[in-house]
């Protein structure tokens, strides 16, 4: 009789422990998945910034006739860059020891993409600025991929 009770209690404790361990792992992997989703969303935004920078800094239309189109591109680029600033505020917990390197690149990207003659009357298309922006974006992508590998031990 007593053996039966002990067996029943042991099984109950094992089930409870199993459920506890499973919930801890689920919470942990959910946490990692959220971080991964944030990185993915940022990478998607980075792709849009890349496209907007290409359209703005390599603008091909006549400057007078195209002024309105150029103006809109400038506003779009600025708005997209602003949107990514919210990732910067989240990124400390996501990027860990790579955070300082990321913020340095984030500032560089903002300065390159919206610096110089950006949104000024003296604006001229600049392959040099576009090239600089692409280089920074490539560095940010590499950094985020490294971080994803560190988080998940996989690409």
């Amino acid at each position: 009789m007593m053996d039966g009770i002990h067996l029943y209690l042991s099984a109950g404790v094992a089930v409870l422990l199993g459920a506890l361990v499973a919930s801890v792992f689920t919470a942990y992997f959910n946490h990692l998945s959220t971080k991964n989703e944030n990185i993915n969303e940022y990478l998607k935004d980075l792709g849009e910034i890349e496209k907007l920078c290409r359209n703005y800094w390599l603008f091909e239309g006549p400057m007078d006739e195209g002024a309105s189109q150029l103006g809109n591109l400038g506003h779009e680029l600025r708005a997209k860059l602003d949107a990514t600033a919210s990732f910067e505020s989240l990124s400390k917990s996501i990027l860990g020891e790579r955070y300082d390197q990321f913020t340095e690149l984030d500032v560089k990207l903002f300065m390159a993409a919206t610096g110089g003659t950006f949104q000024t009357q003296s604006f001229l298309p600049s392959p040099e600025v576009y090239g600089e922006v692409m280089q920074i974006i490539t560095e940010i992508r590499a950094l985020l991929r490294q971080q994803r590998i560190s988080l998940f031990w996989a690409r």
Partner: protein
Amino acid sequence: MEDEIMISVADFSKYPSGRDAQDGSFNGEKYRTTVLEPALQRAISDKKIVCVSLKGVMSFGSSFLEEAFGGLVRKEGFTKEQLKDILRIDPGKPNLTRYQKTIWTYIQNAK
């Protein structure tokens, strides 16, 4: 704080843009000459510091920030060391720290 002269970029414009008058009404040169420089001169004479709040601004362009803050060194004759002592940039929100860092980078890079 009593020792601080508080100014807010949002009081000037929530969407500041461009370098000079050609680029619009809320440009960096105008902000520097009508708001920043007078506040800094007052801070020097009253032995205070100027705190610039970025809160409430919808977005910045680098060209505005470079002209307004880098221009303090390039055109108004302030030294970088002097600005470190009398100027404080308050991002107001965590997602505005990018602009705080950009401002100090422009001050540091100004020649």
